[in-house]
């Protein structure tokens, strides 16, 4: 499942800075940091060619802990700084680390536009469905009913679905993974790194202090296989402890079916992550865990790559426009620029 990996060039130690990591004990961010170092070690990219750019929030401290180039910027705006960095320096591999508050609330606009432009940046959205650094207010990703300091009695706002938003923004790579599934996490990070263009990865991340256990259904050994659908390109969508449940399309409506009872394996939806149209990916992005007692055949939440398509990146297009202009008319000289308008000479 791991991407074709060249020999590791960087060890975890190479990528560790001398700064103390200051996340709370038990925070999901520790695992993500460790897997990121593992993933980068396999890419064959020297560390001076890697930059981490972040906004504000717990996740955004990430750059301080990576011995690469790093820029801890302002709330919500990381995609803009990352875009500028890519424009100036297209040799860099640029990662944006953001959270559900930083990326979906204050910075929602920039996220949408960076993805739409297909700037070659890898956006990692650590989703813990809560505001951590400001100490426990509900976030735009909080599920309805989430109790928090600013939502007494439970929140009642409809939450953002990060992957649906990314797909609507025309993102060319969209994936989801989980902090405590190291192998899957590493593989997804490697795939995001290999993608040319904007990559958007939602990482379920447990906040031990303010929203502990919110993803338990997807991480707890006894239940997770019933609640999580691992997407594999070209494979039928099968899940469940006994691998006997699957997803079938009934007209425009997906449904959970039991193989052998409701249908055969061949009747199931087959995952196609490279489909030109994001319709299937969007449909999958709507699957949400439902633990209400009345839920009948609740959907599993998919993880893996929802969509990966190759389109020209913003930088490729801009750089080729520059190159074209030079080829067509020659490299501009300042002398000519000054005289581009009518000139006259005074003796």
């Amino acid at each position, binding site marked *: 499942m791991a991407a074709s990996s060249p020999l590791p060039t960087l060890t975890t130690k190479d990528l560790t*800075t*001398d*700064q103390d990591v200051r996340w709370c004990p038990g925070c999901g961010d520790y695992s993500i940091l460790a897997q990121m170092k593992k993933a980068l070690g396999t890419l064959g990219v*020297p*560390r*001076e*060619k890697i*930059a981490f*750019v972040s906004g504000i929030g717990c996740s955004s401290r990430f*750059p*301080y802990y*990576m*011995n*690469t*180039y*790093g*820029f*801890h*910027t*302002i*709330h919500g*705006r990381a*995609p*803009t*700084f*990352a*875009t*500028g*960095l*890519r*424009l*100036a*320096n297209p*040799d*860099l591999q640029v990662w944006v680390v953001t959270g559900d508050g930083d990326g979906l609330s204050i910075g929602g*606009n*920039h996220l*949408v*536009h960076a993805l739409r432009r297909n700037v070659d940046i890898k956006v990692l959205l650590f989703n813990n469905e809560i505001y951590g650094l400001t100490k426990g207010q509900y976030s735009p990703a909080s599920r309805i009913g989430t109790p928090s300091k600013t939502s007494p009695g439970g929140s009642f706002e409809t939450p953002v679905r990060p992957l649906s938003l990314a797909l609507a923004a025309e993102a060319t790579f969209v994936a989801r993974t989980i902090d405590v599934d190291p192998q899957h996490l590493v593989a997804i990070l490697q795939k995001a790194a290999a993608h040319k263009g904007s990559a958007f990865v939602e990482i379920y991340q447990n906040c031990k202090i303010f929203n502990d256990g919110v993803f338990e259904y997807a991480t707890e050994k006894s239940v997770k296989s019933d609640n999580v659908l691992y997407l594999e390109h070209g494979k039928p969508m099968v899940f469940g402890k006994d691998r006997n449940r699957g997803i079938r399309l009934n007209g425009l409506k997906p449904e959970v079916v039991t193989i052998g009872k409701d249908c055969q394996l061949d009747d199931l939806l087959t995952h196609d992550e490279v489909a030109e149209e994001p319709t299937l990916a969007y449909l999958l992005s709507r699957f949400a865990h439902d633990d209400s007692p009345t839920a009948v055949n609740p959907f599993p939440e998919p993880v893996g790559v929802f969509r990966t398509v190759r389109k020209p990146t913003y930088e490729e297009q801009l750089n080729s*426009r*520059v190159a074209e*202009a*030079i080829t*067509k*008319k*020659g*490299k*501009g000289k*300042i*002398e000519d*620029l*000054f*005289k581009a*308008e*009518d*000139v*006259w*000479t*005074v*003796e």
Partner: protein
Amino acid sequence: MISNNGTSGSAAPTAAPLGANGHAHRFEEVESVTIRFAGDSGDGMQLAGTQFTNTSALAGNDVATFPDFPAEIRAPAGTLAGVSGFQVHFAATDIHTPGDDLDALVAMNPAALKTNLRDLKPGGILILNTDGFESSDLKKAAYKTNPLDDGSLKGYKIIRVPVTKLTREAVKECGLTPREQDRCKNFFALGLVYWMYERSLETTLRWVREKFKKPEQLPTMEANTKSLKAGYNYGETVEVMPVQYKVGKAKIAPGTYRKITGNEAIVLGLVAATQLANKPLIYASYPITPASSVLEGLAELRRYGVKTFQAEDEIAAVGVAIGASYGGAVGVTGTSGPGVCLKSEGIGLAVMTELPLIIVDVQRGGPSTGLPTKTEQADLLQAMFGRNGECPVAILAAQTPSDCFDIAFEAVRIATRFMCPVFLLSDGYIANGSEPWKIPVIADLPRLEVKNATQPNSDGWTGTGHESGAEGEGGGAGKFLPYRRDELLARPWAIPGTPGLEHRIGGIEKQDVTGNVNYEPANHEHMVKTRAQKIENIALTIPDLAIHGDADANLLVIGWGGTYGSITTAVERTRRRGLKVAQAHLRHLNPMPKNTGDVLKKFKKILVPELNSGQLSWLLRAKYLAPAEGLNKIQGRPFLVSEIEAAIEKALA
């Protein structure tokens, strides 16, 4: 007789050739003329004015222009709100402003007449498109009686021309729709004005050929050519006036010239400064009046290696510019006041991380949306203080359209030498106004030497005892210390991609030298003072404030930015009348030149003309305890020279 803008021009009628209709005909030589083309915003007045300016500049006049247009793209036709004007001052002498009042006014409709007549001198020439004075037109302009007939225009030299009818007649064989035909009437009026001032049509005809060169545009090209010539011939044939006026060549320093607006000059300055510094230019901006033409101008210059980025909003624009600077380019963002509000957090980050950044603020009337198309100088204190925390930046202000070129060089120099944000303040008046610009010789332009860190810099640093009492973490040889400063307190600029210099920066307070996150009380105070001192150190690299005029005068007139032309003209005129006046103009607003306090002390009285409520006055009083008295105008319009003259006279009375 036409007056000549207040200066004592010599009216010298020359030989009298016969006009086309055989009448004797006079030429009169005048020193300068101010004319305004006014019409509906769809009437093409901006174009007519621009063409007249180009032609006059090529004829060797000194020129200064003032376009004045509404914020609405097309307000309802014929209404007072929709009037668009373009004023041109052209002269045989050195001039600094577009002129206070008009020698001639072209009014294409009653609304244009109503809104502009007050600026026409008594006895001035008034060219009226009589076809635009139907009763419905009069109603839209709230005229109760027709000014063409009611005697209210007595005292002006009125030239009545049925421009619409004559234009339709002239272009009737070009195959245009009636609507398209009417769009040529600005060129008919322009042709007539060319005749009045004995100008060649060639520059405009060349422009028409170039502009409409596609085969399908042939009818448009022909129609514009015909209407322009028809207007000229009408003047000659009908002899609308007994005289034609001649404005001779100005005595200008030898050299090659072109006409330039402030925004064009910023474009050229940014490109030239970065090319000569061997640094890529990345300009990120969100369209906003009156700064958009900088973005548009740079977007055309891809073959010069320029990259532009039209951001999703003002915040993104400053973010992209800072990210570009972090990546080793010269990151520039451009905007106007409302955009600066949105960028302020980003600018604070550039102050904190000590990265080069240029913010071009083409000021307009505020607050809020304010007067988008009108000029004002009310963002000085915003640039100075408009951020959270102690957050000093460098501030420059351009004083003329062509000075925008030089100031762009200075902005690039300071941003890259000192690793800091630089505000480049312009304003709507000089951004859209134009003047002749002496094209510089490339070899004479400053070559900015921009250094980037190439290797670790920890040698010689013991890891202890910097003024902050910074602890020893991060010491040792072979390390890169991103905040180890040079003699002027600038930090090194290490570009991501450079091996061995990997480092982290951010908006959290940091330890000096190492750049590590640090919340210690003494360190924070040290860093706040260090960032401030670094900005103060810029003063060590800029020229002293010069005094012009009478250094021993009692009165100093001191200004900043786009008021330079009006102040200079007012000082020149009052001195010519025998008053003793000194003048100084600030291009560096933060820090100010180091002798500024000494200059102010020399004068008993200090007059500060500003297009705001007294922002520079405020700074001068606060910084130097100087007795600054403001002359303040907040009307969205530049100073008239006469307004400053009157203030000077009053101060010396």
